């Protein structure tokens, strides 16, 4: 033990984060390097931990819709969707089919914006700024649609408990279809770029490989897993909401390297485009919301799973019959994928680290829970889960 400690201290540690240009969010990674080669990697999370799960117990069912939406600004709709779906099942309320279709429509638009965002950031990490600029330029067409449709570019607040807030008019339908055509053309181009550009492939092909066994063992989710050949997609495995009516095909690649992750995400976009067209052309008629959604929800518990752009989002919701949830538990995909970065990092060049990191499309805001991963000295002011929980309990006890 002692021996290991002293060895560790002699290593040259390169920290990435919490404030670092490669990370738009504060995560903290430490890579032990030998020259340029990474020999060890650790992560420290928790900079963005806000205590949402505990906070949710002090807010009513309506307020929580917006709180969970702000777990993350990139897949905000997915969180509200998952939560609303759970609460509606708990309250045994049937959401009108048109509302379901609109929810899925927004979810797919969000997937496009999220994948394009990731694509640009990944290109930026690779030092290919032109690709970053062009992909973000094209992403703006989707942002325009989302803003025109929902009224905000990021936290759309499309949902209310029991339905959605707005309708899709004919005019929207037209602009969305046009934008989707444009995006499809561009996506084809980008797919061509990432699979043929020799310079780019040098940074992606064969880098950060996670094979099928590793993917299973590490419990990777979402496109990252599908790039390693894991056939796992909630939209296909357990269709929910309007996905029952509008099924989606799963995109799987087997190489498991960074290139495969690019290919899976870009190919998924084509499925999204197809689905959006299908929904718009076969939009069910009917109401947008149920007449009255109960303010108190009868006791019970429910789980709700939805496929976010980065993988499965999982909610557990328990009610004790009051105006507020008794427990809300969120499990997000990046949390599950984080371990894979650390496993893949060892043996790669330091210069590959940002690429490896973005390979899983990480975003910390949803996975910042009090995970304690101690460094060699153990002198960080770390908040363990237990300490946080105790603090949370004390905090609210004091308030009452």
């Amino acid at each position, binding site marked *: 033990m002692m021996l290991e400690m002293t060895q560790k201290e002699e290593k040259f540690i390169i920290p990435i984060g919490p404030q670092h240009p490669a990370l738009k969010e504060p995560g903290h990674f430490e890579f032990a390097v030998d020259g340029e080669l990474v020999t060890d990697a650790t992560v420290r999370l928790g900079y963005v931990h806000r205590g949402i799960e505990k906070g949710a117990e002090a807010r009513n069912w309506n307020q929580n819709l917006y709180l969970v939406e702000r777990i993350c600004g990139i897949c905000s709709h997915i969180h509200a969707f998952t939560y609303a779906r759970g609460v509606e099942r708990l309250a045994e309320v049937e959401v009108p089919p048109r509302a379901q279709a609109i929810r899925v429509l927004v979810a797919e638009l969000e997937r496009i914006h999220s994948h394009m965002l990731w694509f640009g950031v990944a290109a930026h*990490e690779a*030092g290919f700024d032109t690709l970053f600029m062009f992909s973000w330029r094209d992403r703006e067409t989707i942002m325009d649609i989302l803003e025109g449709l929902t009224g905000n570019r990021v936290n759309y607040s499309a949902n209310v408990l029991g339905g959605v807030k707005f309708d899709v008019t004919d005019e929207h339908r037209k602009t969305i279809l046009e934008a989707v055509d444009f995006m499809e053309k561009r996506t084809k181009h980008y797919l061509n770029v990432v699979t043929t550009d020799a310079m780019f492939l040098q940074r992606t092909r064969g880098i950060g490989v996670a094979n099928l066994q590793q993917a299973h063992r590490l419990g990777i989710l979402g496109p990252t897993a599908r790039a390693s050949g894991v056939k796992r997609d909630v939209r296909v495995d357990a269709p929910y909401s309007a996905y029952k009516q509008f099924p989606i095909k799963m995109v799987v690649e087997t190489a498991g390297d960074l290139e495969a992750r690019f290919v899976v995400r870009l190919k998924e976009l084509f499925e999204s485009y197809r689905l959006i067209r299908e929904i718009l052309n076969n939009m069910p008629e009917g109401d947008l919301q149920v007449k009255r959604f109960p303010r108190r929800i009868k006791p019970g518990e429910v789980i709700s799973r939805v496929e976010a752009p980065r993988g499965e989002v999982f909610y557990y919701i328990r009610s004790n019959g009051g105006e507020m949830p008794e427990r809300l538990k969120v499990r997000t995909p990046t949390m599950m994928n984080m371990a894979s970065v650390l496993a893949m990092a060892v043996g790669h060049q330091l210069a590959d680290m940002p690429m490896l990191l973005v390979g899983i499309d990480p975003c910390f805001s949803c996975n910042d829970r009090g995970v304690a991963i101690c460094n060699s000295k153990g002198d960080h002011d770390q908040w363990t889960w237990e300490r946080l929980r105790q603090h949370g309990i004390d905090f609210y006890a004091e308030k009452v």
Partner: protein
Amino acid sequence: MEAIGNIVSLLFFPGGLFVIFAGLMYEWLDHKIIARSQNRIGPRWFQPIADAIKLLTKEEIVPDGVNPVLFAILPLIALAGALTAALYVPMAGLKPAYSFAGDLIVTVYMLSLLTLSIGLAGANAKERFSLVGSTRALTQLFAYEAPFLLALLGPAIAAGSWQISEIVAYTETHTWMMILQPIGFVVALIGLMGKLELPPFDSPEAETEIVAGALTEYSGRGLAIFHLGKGAELIIGLTLITAFYMGGVSNPVWFLVKTVGLLAVLAALQSLMTRLRIDQTVGMWWRYGALLVLLQWLIIVVVQLV
């Protein structure tokens, strides 16, 4: 009288203020072309000037643990090196201020002084990103220096002189070296990109990996001076290559046209490529760059013999 002339040439033209100012304008042009190729508007023409003035008037923080003398003096050495180099090249199409046999070698090494100072500055800062940055900067220096110099020697051999003014006189009266020695031209161009740490050879200051590389800890004045040095290096490098490979620079108009043309090519190359890892950069230089130039030399020698 001569002393006054010397001071003028050192401080104003063709060294000093002129090179600094021209360097800033070329830097703007570079950014502007890149911005336009990315379908956006890009910076205004006075942007680099505003940046430089702002940095010069900002507080300069000397971090703990550095050698303060080195910290302050390294940027000056870098800039002085670049400005001295400017005296030996046909700046703005005019005759170099000084000239002696073998000044080509001196010029190239004066330019390297900048990279060397940056490397030392990074090592001095004792901060992790700076250290990695400086290691990378020096590794890269080691990698491109030889091919770049060899590529510049191609025209020198053809002209049979190692004196810049004589080589230029030779290239002005002959077919463009770019056509006679295409390999040398390409290597020199890419060597210049490596020297200036432009993408795709910007791993010494790769923002997404090591923040700002060796200069991470520099603020205010030091950063500004390094910045000015980079600008000077850009314009000197462009001048050298146009003078050697693109039919010389006989007057200011030709100078402007040719260097700007070359800059546009550089900018386009920058916007088309993905950053190379440092091991890829070094590998590429030694495996292809150096060998290609040797091949070029061989061709020159054979042609001259025949």
